[in-house]
């Protein structure tokens, strides 16, 4: 009880600190509002406005029909280029896809010769190349089939697929990007705010002052974490309701309070990583470097940018030790799929356990780091 009171009393002071640091306040406000909005409206990993060029060597009614089949939002209006410009178009990165409709294409189609259209893809754009190829093949097949079967009914395929996309029927990428960016912000800010506060307080001697008072290291560390977590929690709530659901119009399926509970746990875990880094670095440049070293894998390999399934098994296993991996999974399950606690509790346990381990490490190194600071 006494400990809780200490943690509470000591923590209230952090609000004053944050209030006095206007740059950080502005940064926090921006990343949870404007930043999310920009990401939500800008990105798309799936096909969107893909630049495409077509070499029309046939110039027939079929080839014109094919050219007209490519339009937004998946493709930009195709630019027509001569055969000689094809390589340059791809080299310069102006188009990701270049189609070559061969001479006499229409005639060969009608003659049943099954001519091929060449589809050149810039495979350095991994995320769009494959999906784009599938789309282009489908569009071309449908258009050609409709052209051939002019006026007749096309023969039906014996097995048709009734494909329904669950949780995001139109595969709108802002649904994904906005929430993942909130997660990235939580990771970055928790490590940055708590870690730098520790390094700074150690340099200013205020930590020492606390250590000679009847307070335990656990109390001091927890008092550093809870006020910031509250600020982040409020920011995330505002961001979810105001920006994600409000401005971007993303329907959030599941229970937001449950997600916020997860946010709290996640903040605790990453803040402990921040404290851990703060205790092992001797000055701010060292902390900055270590932070980058930790943040990048945490953000990029957690499944919030590329799918986890496709990573090498070793990376997947290592990343199980990162709280973000579990949190990304948890966030997707709750917010998009509407999962309840019975489905996601193992993730809660995992994040809490990782947090506890780092908290223990930080605590063990905390006093040692003070001795070193001299």
């Amino acid at each position: 009880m006494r400990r809780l009171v200490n943690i509470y009393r000591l923590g209230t002071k952090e609000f004053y600190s944050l209030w006095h640091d206007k740059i950080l306040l502005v940064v926090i406000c921006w990343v949870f509002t404007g930043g999310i909005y920009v990401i939500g409206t800008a990105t798309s990993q799936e096909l969107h406005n893909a630049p495409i060029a077509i070499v029309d060597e046939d110039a027939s009614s079929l080839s014109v029909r094919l050219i007209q089949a490519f339009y937004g939002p998946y493709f930009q209006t195709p630019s027509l280029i001569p055969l000689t410009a094809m390589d340059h178009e791809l080299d310069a990165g102006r188009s990701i896809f270049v189609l070559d409709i061969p001479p006499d294409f229409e005639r060969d189609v009608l003659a049943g010769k099954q001519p091929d259209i060449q589809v050149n893809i810039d495979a350095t754009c991994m995320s769009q190349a494959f999906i784009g190829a599938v789309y282009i093949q489908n569009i071309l097949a449908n258009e050609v089939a409709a052209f051939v079967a002019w006026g007749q009914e096309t023969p039906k395929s014996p097995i048709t697929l009734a494909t329904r996309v669950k949780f995001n029927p139109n595969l709108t990428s802002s649904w994904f990007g906005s929430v993942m960016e909130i997660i990235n912000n939580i990771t970055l800010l928790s490590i940055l705010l708590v870690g730098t506060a520790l390094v700074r307080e150690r340099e200013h001697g205020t930590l020492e002052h606390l250590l000679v008072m009847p307070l335990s290291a656990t109390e001091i560390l927890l008092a550093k974490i809870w006020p910031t977590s509250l600020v982040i929690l409020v920011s995330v709530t505002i961001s979810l309701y105001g920006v994600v659901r409000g401005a971007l119009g993303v329907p959030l399926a599941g229970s937001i309070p449950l997600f916020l509970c997860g946010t709290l746990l996640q903040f605790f875990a990453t803040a402990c990583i921040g404290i851990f880094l703060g205790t092992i670095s001797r000055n701010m440049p060292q902390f900055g470097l270590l932070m980058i070293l930790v943040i990048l894998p945490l953000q990029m390999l957690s499944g919030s940018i590329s799918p986890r399934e496709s990573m090498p098994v070793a990376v997947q296993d290592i990343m199980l030790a990162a709280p973000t991996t579990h949190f990304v999974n948890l966030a997707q399950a709750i917010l998009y799929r509407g999962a309840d606690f019975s489905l996601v509790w193992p993730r809660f346990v995992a994040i809490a356990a990782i947090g506890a381990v780092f908290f223990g490490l930080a605590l063990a190194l905390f006093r040692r780091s003070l001795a070193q600071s001299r």
Partner: protein
Amino acid sequence: MTSPGVARLAGVSLRYGKTTALDAIDLEIPSGCMAGLIGPDGVGKSSLLALVSGARRIQAGTVAVLGGDMADAGHRNALCPRIAYMPQGLGKNLYAALSVTENLTFFGRLFGQDRAEREERIATLLAATGLAAFADRPAGKLSGGMKQKLGLCCALIHDPDLLILDEPTTGVDPLSRRQFWRLIQTIRAGRPGMSVLVATAYMEEAESFDWLAAMDAGRILAQGSPQELLDHTKTPDLETAFIELLPQDKRQGHKALVVPPFVVREGEPPAIVAKGLTIRFGTFTAVDHVDFEIRRGEIFGFLGSNGCGKTTTMKMLTGLLPPSEGEAMLFGQKADAHNLETRKRVGFMTQAFSLYSELTVRQNLTLHAQLFHLPTAEIAPRVAEMLTRFDLTDQADTLPDQLPLGLRQRLSLAVAVIHRPEMLILDEPTSGVDPVARDSFWELLIDLSRNQGVTIFISTHFMNEGERCDRISLMHAGRVLASDTPAKLVEQRGKSNLEDAFIDCLEEATGKEQTAVPDRPAAAPSPPPQASPRTGSYDLRRSLLRLWAYADHETREMLRDPVRLVVSLLGSVLLLFVLGYGITFDVENLKFAVLDRDQSPESRDYIQNMAGSRYFIEQPPLADAAELDRRMAGGDLSLALSIPPDFGKDLRRGRVVEIGVWVDGAMPFRGETVRGYIEGLNTLYLQQLALRTQGVVTGMPAAGTQVRYRYNQDFRSLYAMVPGVIPLMLIFIPSIMMALGVVREKELGSITNLYVTPVTRLEFLLGKQLPYVAVSMVSYFGMMAVSVFVFEVPLKGSFLLLSGAALVFVTVTTDIGLLISSFAKTQIAALALTAISTLLVTVTFSGLTTPVSSLQGPGAFLGAVFPVTFFINICRGIFTKALGFGELWPNFLALAAYAPALTLLSVALLPKQEK
């Protein structure tokens, strides 16, 4: 003193926010003599010196130095080589990681001296100051006195006409202090024309100056020679004279301090016992077998210079540092960091003000009362009592930052005693406090000790405070030299006062040979060989020399911080490994499950077709629709199929059957890919089915497509990712290191060198940038080696061209760091701003995962102008497409344009004077 003054101030005022530091000052400082500014901390001495030296921007009034207006940048620049400024704080403008010689070399280069001239001057100065024996020792490991001597050497390296010293002897032991002044005398004897302007809080030092100005609260109280001041106030010494000069309300209640004698109570156990207390940091012994016993209710003093081990001893007593050897006992119990009960009986006040500056006086008191668990009902009255007793009632709701130092120290003491401790440990509580405030502080201490039986353990470097203690220990270099009552110590040494007794002890302990200052005035630098005009035309060679001074210093500093060096060199290679392997867009191993309501051979065949592909892994089948919903919600499945009853029968009869497909759209990219896969597999299955059952291929399209994946035939993510991750690594680490490298100078104070030496902003920035560009290039070559030899990503284009682009790119990324550092004031702000501004845009908008052409809104704009975009284009173009300059020139041009633009912007934003 008929010659025109070396500096003339008229109507000069200076404000920091709401605080007035200087209030309409009119002053003429005489030239060719020792001029002093006296007064306690925070009265405006440092501000005045900063204005005279040109380090700080003039807000109001005019300052004329050496015959020119300091508001005029041209005059300031011309004047730089004639003024030397040594800021307050031990070794503040020195670089702790550099050795004595390296520091001097740095300053020599800043003043454009060539090697021969520099080496000659350094040798002369080192010999003159007795530092020659320590030429290779890092400045950070020098004692306070030696640091100040080095600071003086650095200031004298260019033969200034005006030497400005801001509290050069504060925190220095009395022997070093005496040597320092002797050194100044010697130098002045060698260069009689030089004016010296000194600020000091030690009144006894000021007595030997030629001219004095006494300052208080941003105003000049009086000026004249020391004798004139004494005559004017009719007082015997300057300290009393100063108190006499203070306005009436400040003097009020001041009276000579009387310390009632300490009565030893027999039979009581000692409150503090230290036995053979020793602590080592690495090979350095900071405290060496210190013993003492302090009785209950006694005032025990620790006297010594900065860095002699006073603070460290105190930290061991409080349990903050575990001793390497020996033990410390408080109230008969071992000092232990985990003993919370002992902590409640002790009050501690650290050297630096360590209360929360964001809480008001009252909030600080209340917080501490709460943390010490005073009963809730008692807190408010106790806080009120402390406010009255320490005379802080009027300031109760003020933030500590707005209080003068004396009041802040009083607050610290109030906080330290709020829980009625039986023992107080005070580390230099009166450092920098004016004499009147110091006396009133001591009144409080005496009251606590004599009337309430509180044991007080106090450290100080003021001799007159030492005289007030019941017993003192004289400390030097981690050892206690002598320990007794002040009177007995003076008597034992046969001296007239404590200061002389201490100096005698010090000389005995350190030995004459080490501390001797050569007396020959010839040792002082002779007039310069006059190698160069002091003012005037731009000289490229000197400019490069100044630039090199910073580059050389930054390189050495980096080389001496192994953690920073290793992380910055290997960190990027390590991340390339992790990210290169980790990020992949080859979507494979997707989990799927089937709700098979048919259970016929045909349905099993269909499922087998799916499970056999490398894209999908089959999971245990689904029992019903509810399970499908549940398992998809839990994220176990990316794909679920529902095969209707009679699937097999209908298929055999040629009826069209429909399979239900559910794709997890939570991650749109993956969902889209899954949809593509499943349609492809279905078509393939139908073709095979037709072939098997009818022996013919049906349903073939009238036209086909022939897909060619260019540049990356195997369609491997690694080939696409590696050329994208290299730019990623080359922006974060260089920009953060660069930003912190500059802001660190601001926080540590060595930025003053930019303000008062001839170095220009451009030279400063480029000099600091060069080493980071070099380190980044080394890490670039490391990453290239890993990419080509470990990942075996073929480099199709020109390595030389790519390296050239990388060089331009790291110049730009370090420029980003420079830009941020030019306005960020703290390292935290610099770190946060750099991380946030580079991380987001680079990862999402620069074409790493999504082509810039597919972005929209503000993100598309950011992506189109962000320099990383251009380098990713170049990197991918050269790596995978074998493109040359002919194709890539627009990217090169855009990238190259950023470098000068950002540098110029940084130069424009970085002030050459403190605001």
